[in-house]
């Protein structure tokens, strides 16, 4: 039940179209915690009933709807309405998937299928091929108003998809994860298993034992980074692993050589002092020979000043 509420609210927010889809997942959880359950229900119900996606056929009868129907030729054809309904379903499926895969990030590996479906239906809508009854839904659904809601909704999700760079982890055609990704996951799991094994005892043992696998993982990651075959899933899992390694298990390098570094530094800093002292003491000071300028000797400036002062 609660999940339904959240989803409905999500759709509501998307419907209003002002919030970026990207923030919706976050917003909804915050809102959900702030609003009372009742208020939430009311809001969701109101919006949901208005939404043509959910009740395409009953919309015109509903009391909240102030408009009566347009003449036949301006109405959206049934075929398009159907497409729209499918789009709505797939849309919510994908968003649900995204939300559940938000932390730790698994949006690529978990949701590529649903995204594929969504993309398919959108391609259907936006194609200029004529459907049954010689209608093209592209113009009637995508371009007939200022808001261009369907386009906007799809674009937001597309932005999420491109932003998370899932394309580099999912092989072309979106049917499966790439081999690189799978291999990385396998290596990652190896490291994590190692961590698990040694977690109980002393962390220094862990640092020693898991070092090779962890280093292998790190190198694999930097190789992938160079090839630009990283998606958000891999980046996030790597980040988590690194944090685990450095912060939780404290396996980073210790600052162990203070004494030699300080010694060398102070030796270096001492050199200029010696240099300046010795050049002060031993180098002969450069003197300048003064030249007597040729001046009219009758009235020197000094006499003049005194004349004028008195």
């Amino acid at each position, binding site marked *: 039940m609660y999940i339904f509420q959240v989803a409905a609210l999500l759709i509501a927010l998307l419907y209003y179209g002002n919030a970026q889809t990207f923030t919706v997942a976050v917003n909804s959880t915050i809102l959900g915690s702030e609003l009372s359950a009742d208020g939430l229900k009311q809001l969701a119900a109101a919006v949901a009933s208005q939404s043509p996606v959910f009740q395409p056929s009953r919309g015109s009868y509903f009391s909240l709807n102030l408009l009566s129907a347009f003449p036949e030729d301006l109405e959206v054809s049934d075929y398009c309405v159907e497409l729209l309904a499918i789009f709505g379903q797939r849309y919510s499926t994908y968003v649900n998937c995204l939300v559940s895969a938000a932390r730790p990030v698994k949006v690529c590996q978990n949701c590529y299928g649903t995204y594929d479906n969504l993309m398919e239906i959108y391609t259907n809508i936006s194609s200029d091929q004529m459907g049954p009854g010689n209608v093209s839904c592209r113009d009637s659904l995508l371009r007939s108003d200022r808001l261009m809601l369907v386009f906007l909704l799809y674009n937001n999700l597309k932005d999420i998809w491109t932003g998370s760079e899932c394309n580099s982890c999912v092989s072309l055609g979106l049917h499966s994860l790439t081999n690189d990704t799978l291999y990385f996951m396998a290596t990652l799991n190896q490291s994590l298993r190692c961590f698990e094994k040694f977690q109980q005892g002393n962390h220094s043992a862990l640092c020693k034992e898991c070092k090779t696998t962890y280093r292998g993982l*790190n190198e694999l990651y930097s190789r992938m980074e160079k090839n630009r075959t990283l998606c958000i899933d891999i980046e996030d899992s*790597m*980040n988590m692993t*690194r*944090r685990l*390694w*450095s*912060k939780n298990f404290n396996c*980073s*390098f*210790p*600052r*162990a*050589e203070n004494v*030699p*570094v*300080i*010694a*060398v*530094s102070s030796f*270096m*800093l001492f*050199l*200029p002092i010696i*240099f*300046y002292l010795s*050049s*002060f003491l031993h*180098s002969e*000071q*450069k*003197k*300048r*020979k*003064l*030249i*007597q*300028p*040729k*001046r*009219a000797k009758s*009235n*020197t*400036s*000094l006499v*003049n*000043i*005194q004349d*004028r*002062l*008195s």
Partner: protein
Amino acid sequence: MANITKKVSWSSRGDESGGGERTPLLNGSEEVRYTRQLSGDGGMFHIGRLSTVDLEEDMTSDEDAGCPKEIPHNEKLLSLKYESLDYDNSENQLFLEEERRMSFLGFKCLEISRWVICGLIGFLTGLIACCIDIAVENLAGVKYFVVKQNIEKFTEVGGLSISLILWAVLNAAFVMVGAVIVAFFEPGAAGSGIPQIKCYLNGVKIPRVVRLKTLVVKVCGVICSVAGGLAVGKEGPMIHSGAVVAAGVSQGRSTSLKKDFKIFEYFRRDTEKRDFVSAGAAAGVSAAFGAPVGGVLFSLEEGASFWNQMLTWRIFFASMISTFTLNFFLSIYNKKPGDLSSPGLINFGRFESDSVAYNLYEIPLFIVMGAAGGLLGALFNILNYWLTIFRIRYVHRPCLQVMEAMLVAAVTATVSFAMIYFSNDCQPLGPDQSEDYPLQLFCADGEYNSMATAFFNTPERSVRSLFHNPPGSYNPLTLSLFTLTYFFLACWTYGLTVSAGVFIPSLLIGAAWGRLFGILLASITPDGSIWADPGKYALIGAAAQLGGIVRMTLSLTVIMVEATGNVTYGLPIMLVLLTAKIVGDYFVEGLYDIHIKLQSVPFLHLEAPATSHWLTAREVMSAPVTCFNRIEKVGTIVDVLSNTSTNHNGFPVVVPVAASDDMGKVCGLILRSQLIVLLKHKVFVELARSRLTQRKLQLKDFRDAYPRFPPIQSIHVSQDERECMMDLTEFMNPTPYTVPQETSLPRVFKLFRALGLRHLVVVDGENRVVGLVTRKDLARYHLGKHGLEEMQLAQT
């Protein structure tokens, strides 16, 4: 004694600053002070308080006044080695003749060739800037790559002190190359070159400053010193390079390479050359900062006394061509040919988005920052002043200078390393990898050492990351430590015998404390994060610090505005620079002026010192004057020119009046260079009579000898020839400027500034020569803390 340590103290302003114990000016005790100064023995206490220089003079000058005195170098000296440029055209008969012969078309061609030269200047300057940029980037890239590999290796297995030594040795090696070529081959290429160019535009001929050799040493030197990790920038040297390019191109030949292209011969004189040099300086600024208008204004600000609209337009053309050339070649280098969006050597990057907009209530904050910049700048200048004095006095041998530069390089590396090593400030790596050489060291995996972004990088990149890294990339402790160390490092570095500029270090210091200020501001205001964008404050801080150090006004404002590409910042930057200048000038002059003074250059400032109206030409001039007759014996001329004790360059030509009076009426002025050319070609009256076919001397012969006229010693004059006579009528300037004896100093000064004079003949009522005023006679007066003071001439 009294003559030499003559110190004119005419004070009307010093009273407030003098403190309680100083006697007011116009009362009875004034006489006492002067007699004390004259006697020079009992007055030690009082004179010592006048200035430190006085004290030293008195201590060293115990011996008799007769023999030449030697004193330690100080700022109140004028060196004899500097001469004035001949900006004033000598309108002698040869000149008139040539002008008559020249057709209308000839003048048109001259005008066109001026434009061509300006285009060439811009092109070559841009090309040089491009070469410097690419070379520095690659060399520094290799260096940082090697050190980074090394550090990474030793972080794991231990032995980081070896990395430290490696870094220090690499730095020192680069800097050694740079310092050796400067110290042993061309000392004129040391420093940023801006003071020298400033002097040149002011009308002082600095020896060897616009030679090809200087250019080569300068370019190689700056590459070495920046790649060597010193706290320096490559922007100042660009201005010098541009000036040298201009001086070379406009002459159509190179005396160093002994190659004469036989073009642009008309421009072989100081007047034309200097116009082109100002264009070159502008092109240099423009290439360095991507600021063509700023470049033009820089030339205007520094060389403003001789200016006209057409010249401005040509200079602007040169600047534009220069920034375009740099842009174009860099775009090819960056494999984006045709993309003209990296206009300068230092690119501040774009400041956009709403967070960098500023509001009315921030203006007072900017002004406060300007004042802080002025204070810090003054501190920088004072420290550097003392250091430079020490260097001139004690570190004057080339090998010592090289050693010093290497030491500075090694210490810079050491300090940077220690800072990075002990820093605990770790920041997560960003997605777009703005750091070129992120060092992890002891940070957690996936994080980098934030101190390393500031130190383990070329200064330009550090400036850019301070401007543009998102809020939170630096913590306040890192920034304050960085500011502190970099301030002293930069101050220590400027004035070394390497060619390097001070612009970037100043910007870096300013950007660091500006960013710190922004961060603190954001933390003390409740909703601060909205408007207190640290990048914006970094920019303002950089402007304030730079303004506080160099004290440039209009041109710097425009340069900063152009370099950020954001006109909206015009007002805050102007306010900041204004405040910085006012506050800084209260304590000490700008860095360039200090260095000009320490070089003992006879520099003419914008105006004569205030309170100098009572000085007349009679007191200022040199007398007696060495004059020549219209028809003079060759022997006399040779003797006068060979006299090493009097190194005169201009000689009034006189018509003797009565036999009793030795001073004749002035009828012209002839220069040493002209006399030397005449002697070389043996233009003697007797020879002309005997050999009627002899070719007449033309203006071209004088131009061919320019600018390196042979010394008199190299010209052989036989005993017979000494008895010949020389007719100077044709060659002298028949209408030299003259002033009566009673002309006040400011009036004479204005003539010098406005006309670019080199010699000004002082005459009495009957047009008889009384004395001669030169640049050194004027430049020796300056307004000190205690009124008008007089500088001394010295052999350096």
